[in-house]
């Protein structure tokens, strides 16, 4: 996904993608982030307890926690209401 996304939209994308454990490279590629911003976002989400870091030998993956499910649910509800409540455009 590209374009101008808000920080919260990027968090949502990362958390949805990490429902199953993912590598750092996979996350930044999927969410169209560079390495620096990717580390910042992941650091914040890990710090808030939305992502857990799984280390297996030299491999590190990130997985969404139960707390992330709450964020995803709230985000989905808020974004669906944009289409439920606001009259849309139709020719």
């Amino acid at each position, binding site marked *: 996904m590209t*374009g101008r*996304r808000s920080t919260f*939209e990027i968090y949502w994308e990362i958390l949805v993608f990490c429902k199953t454990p993912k590598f750092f490279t996979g996350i930044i590629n999927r969410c169209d982030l560079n390495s620096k911003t990717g580390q910042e976002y992941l650091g914040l989400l890990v710090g808030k*307890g939305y992502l857990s870091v799984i280390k297996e030998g030299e491999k590190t993956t990130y997985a969404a926690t139960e707390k992330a499910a709450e964020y995803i649910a709230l985000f989905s509800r808020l*974004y669906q209401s944009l289409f439920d409540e*606001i009259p849309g455009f139709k020719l």
Partner: protein
Amino acid sequence: MTTGVEKQFSDELTSFFVLILLNIAFGALVMAFGLQFIIMSALAVTGGQTSDVLQVIRGAVGVAGVVLGFSWLYSSTKIMRGLKGIRREYRNRAAPVSDETVIGWIVEMMAHYRENRSTIRWMTLICSFGGCIYLALGIVNIVQGISAGASPGGMVMLGLFFFAAGINLTIGIVTLLLSTWFRRYSASWDCRLAEVSQAEDSLRSAMDQR
């Protein structure tokens, strides 16, 4: 839960896609008319017909038309580029569509609108401006037709001028309609952007509670 939202998303996506396609078609028409004016004035100058000043004015109008048409086409294709990706994803969807997939499309449309907001506003202006010019040209054609029809044997010219007026007035009206539709699209998404900034406050406070 998402069926209604998905339907609305699909309707909006299709409507906006059609709007951009129409816009590209009319942008191309403006460019073609501009080129026609340039060629006509060049032919008239080389053929030694009428005054040079009139031909220079006609040529300048043609150049303005080409520039306007090019700008029109460029802006439309810029908007189209992002939209095609979203449309492709939507068309290749696998049923049943999950909540997350629908929300993903909404996020993409939101990002697309944020990125193209100024271009869409520019498009609205171009369409309004172009529509007014075409309406003016149509009115000029009608006046020319009436004055040509008054002269003896001028019925053929009257018919030709009225035919040209019909084309110009139709393009003018459709172009002004395009501008109104762009305005409606922007109003809808501006409203959503305002809602999103409120939603972000809720998300921020939910995150800060952790």
